């Protein structure tokens, strides 16, 4: 007779072994290694919660201290490879296979380990893609997650950085997996239940609070006049023309400049209430002046940002907050919102090729994708119209009955023609292709595919790729805004002028923008301290951003 409950039986056995190290559900930090060695079995699929911000670092240290003779060949399935321990476990033989989304600071080391064969790579995903696979073919056997506090029954308060936790727990707890949470404190009563206790098997009181990185803070003091010029062009040439109200911003200085120009430059253009009202966005400090000036109706967040807690608590009309008053974020929902309910994604990139493919890969780093490709893509499953979406769809052209044509999401790349250390942003061939060859990847790591990009904004102008009808036009449109890079200098001047006459390329002067007006005095805040003043003292920037 078929045993339909093998997984459940196996789960019970794991719990039984682990209970020796726990007092009810509670496990002291000193017993983490014992606990993990009791729960884990060789070959397990494990999610060691590494989010964009919140890190289950105590459990990560515990896992890397496990005996490789007992715990080995794990298959890690987690969105972020952020901490050194996330990779140490591969060197130690504890883990073997990896499916992930984003590796930011560890990108260089991952590339080396992939090349050296220490990591068996499944795939590099976008966030939504990895979350989706948690429910289909990458369901974790064990989830090691992080929260702010828990009660003795395992009810979990994740705090403002809820991020991936609900998704990870959903996939693990309801499919016979074991969930272990590290928390900063065990309390009698959690301030809000983000994860119900019956989905959490063990709670570890961590030796120190989990690590959070301020990833979304851009110091207004470092915004350059070139970035301001590009922001002015984006506002006047794209936001205003398409009436973009629902949007997502990347995390670069260019988009920070847009946020800081809303209460000044955009206000003078009479755009208040007409653009940038509904957001899928982390709580960027640089959006505070726009919020305080009444520009923003609401913001749903992927995660939180260090120092923004008090401000968010005081602005519940704008942010999603729980009964306790603090932010409730959720990466899976916010990514979905960014994909389906936003009309524009605008972000930066390191390289754009002649077709418009873009990549943040350099030859020696595998930084992963994160969420940009989810938001920076045209969702074919979308069915609700908006003026913005329909206008972009009309520009993209097509044949047949207009009622049968879909709209288009605007996907904008905001790039200076030369990036850091004067490296050109426009290239004939992406470094991603070289990397794919070197590491034997089937797919080159492309952040935003050419067919999803609708506009490229540089300091030289805006290229509207929606209006291009041939690949040649597209190439010349890209060359036409690529400035003095090799790609830019390789333009066909006559063709670029024809594209300009058709409005496919627009220069600052075509938009009525005087480049000399792009001055830092246009920024609503010119320093972190200005942001604190705007917030009425509610924003509390972390030490690395303070000069006081």
């Amino acid at each position, binding site marked *: 007779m078929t045993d339909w409950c093998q997984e459940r039986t196996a789960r019970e056995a794991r719990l039984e072994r682990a209970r020796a190290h726990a007092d009810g559900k509670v496990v002291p930090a000193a017993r983490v290694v014992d606990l993990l060695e009791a729960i884990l079995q060789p070959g397990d699929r494990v999610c060691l919660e590494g989010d964009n911000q919140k890190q289950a670092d105590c459990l990560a240290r515990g896992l890397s201290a496990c005996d490789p003779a007992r715990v080995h060949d794990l298959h890690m399935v987690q969105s972020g490879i952020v901490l050194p321990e996330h990779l140490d476990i591969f060197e130690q033989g504890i883990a073997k296979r990896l499916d992930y989304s984003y590796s930011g600071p560890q990108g260089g080391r991952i590339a080396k380990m992939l090349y050296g064969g220490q990591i068996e790579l499944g795939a590099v995903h976008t966030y939504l893609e990895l979350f989706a696979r948690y429910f289909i073919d990458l369901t974790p056997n064990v989830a090691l997650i992080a929260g702010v506090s828990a009660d003795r029954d395992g009810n979990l308060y994740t705090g403002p950085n809820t991020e991936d936790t609900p998704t990870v727990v959903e996939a693990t707890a309801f499919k016979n997996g074991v969930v272990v949470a590290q928390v900063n404190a065990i309390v009698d009563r959690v301030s809000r239940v983000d994860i119900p206790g019956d989905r959490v098997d063990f709670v570890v009181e961590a030796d120190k609070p989990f690590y959070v990185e301020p990833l979304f803070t851009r110091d207004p003091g470092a915004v350059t006049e070139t970035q301001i010029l590009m922001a002015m062009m984006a506002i006047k040439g794209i936001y205003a023309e398409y009436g973009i109200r629902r949007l997502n911003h990347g995390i670069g200085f260019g988009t920070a400049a847009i946020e800081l120009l809303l209460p*000044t430059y955009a206000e003078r253009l009479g755009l208040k209430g007409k653009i940038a009202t509904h957001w899928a966005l982390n709580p960027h400090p640089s959006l505070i002046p726009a919020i305080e000036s009444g520009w923003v109706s609401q913001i749903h967040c992927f995660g939180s940002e260090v120092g923004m807690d008090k401000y968010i608590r005081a602005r519940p009309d704008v942010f999603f907050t729980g009964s306790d008053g603090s932010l409730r974020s959720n990466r899976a929902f916010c990514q979905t919102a960014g994909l389906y309910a936003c009309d524009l994604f605008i972000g930066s990139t390191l390289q754009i090729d002649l077709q418009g493919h873009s990549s943040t890969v350099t030859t020696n780093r595998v930084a992963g994708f994160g969420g940009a490709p989810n938001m920076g893509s045209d969702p074919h499953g979308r069915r609700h119209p908006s003026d913005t979406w329909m206008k972009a769809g009309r520009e993209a052209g097509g044949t047949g009955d207009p009622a049968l044509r879909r709209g288009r999401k605007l996907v904008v790349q905001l790039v200076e023609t030369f990036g850091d250390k004067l490296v050109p942003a426009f290239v004939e061939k992406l470094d991603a292709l070289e990397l794919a060859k070197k590491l034997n990847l089937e797919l080159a790591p492309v952040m935003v595919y050419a067919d999803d990009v609708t506009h490229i904004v540089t300091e030289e102008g805006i290229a509207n790729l929606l209006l291009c009808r041939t690949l040649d036009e597209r190439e010349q449109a890209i060359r036409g805004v690529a400035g003095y890079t090799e790609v830019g200098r390789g333009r066909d001047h006559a063709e670029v002028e024809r594209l300009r006459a058709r409005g496919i390329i627009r220069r600052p002067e075509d938009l009525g923008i005087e480049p000399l007006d792009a001055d*830092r005095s246009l920024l*609503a805040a010119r320093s972190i301290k200005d942001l604190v*003043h*705007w917030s009425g003292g509610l924003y509390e920037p972390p030490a690395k951003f303070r*000069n*006081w």
Partner: protein
Amino acid sequence: MDWKPVTLSPSPLDQSWYEASARARLAGLLDADSFQEFIGPEQRMMSPHLPLFDLPRAFDDGMIVGHGLLEAQPVLVAAQEGRFMGGAFGEIHGAKLVGLLRAALAVKPSAVLILFDTGGVRLQEANAGETAIAEIMRAIAIARAAGIPVIGLIGGRAGCYGGGGLVAGTCSRLVISEGGRLSVSGPEVIETNRGAEEFDSRDRALVWRTMGGKHRRLLGAADAFVDDTIGAFRAAALAAIPAAPAFDLATLQAEQARLEARLDRFGDCADATEIWGRLGVDDPTAVPGLTTEAFDALLDRLPEGPHHAR
């Protein structure tokens, strides 16, 4: 921390001093359209040394000198452009300031205003730069001895470091803002020579509480602390001119006594906040967050009055 509404005023006087270029500072500081430049960029008096290092030059070598009116009083002014080579002193840069100070003896202005924005001497022309620092200090002493106040204004991106810090020390009066920093050795220099344990140059809060405007004002190294606006610097410069002390033996002896007493009293302090505590500040950790108004009120409450040495 206290907070104030951020203004989006377009008035030149409300613009940030820290953000402004040297020329914009001069334009806002002086009476409208009164500035006349000596040896302007059209004369292309540039560094003879930088081409040896394949480095770009500036037509004004990062130093703008000239004369103008401040509330109708004639003044000579010098402004460093911190965005060109960190406002560093090179041969031409320094010579323009020396010349200006020497001209003061003949012109007899109400004051010479020096708008500091410098990391110190330019390494590529270090000998000429160091010589310039010495010549500038001597020229300031001679101008002050002739009864001409020399007022330093410090609030630029580069701060006032190295030889600039020495020159500032010879001025009659110093006005500083929060963004301004005044010191001889910069944070990176200290860290390189003594290690990050001695001074972590990336700890911005540490840098500002050790070298920033509030600390310098509390210690008596600067005489006025102002908001980071061109208007605030203008008002403070106007107030500083009549307050400049005589440059005589009594002033110098008083300054020497003040500095000796300061060293005795605070020499063993490990952090600026300890000094502030000894000065009688109730909550030293709150000082960096204070607005200018609250900070001025704090200065008034302190047991010792403002320092008026030099």
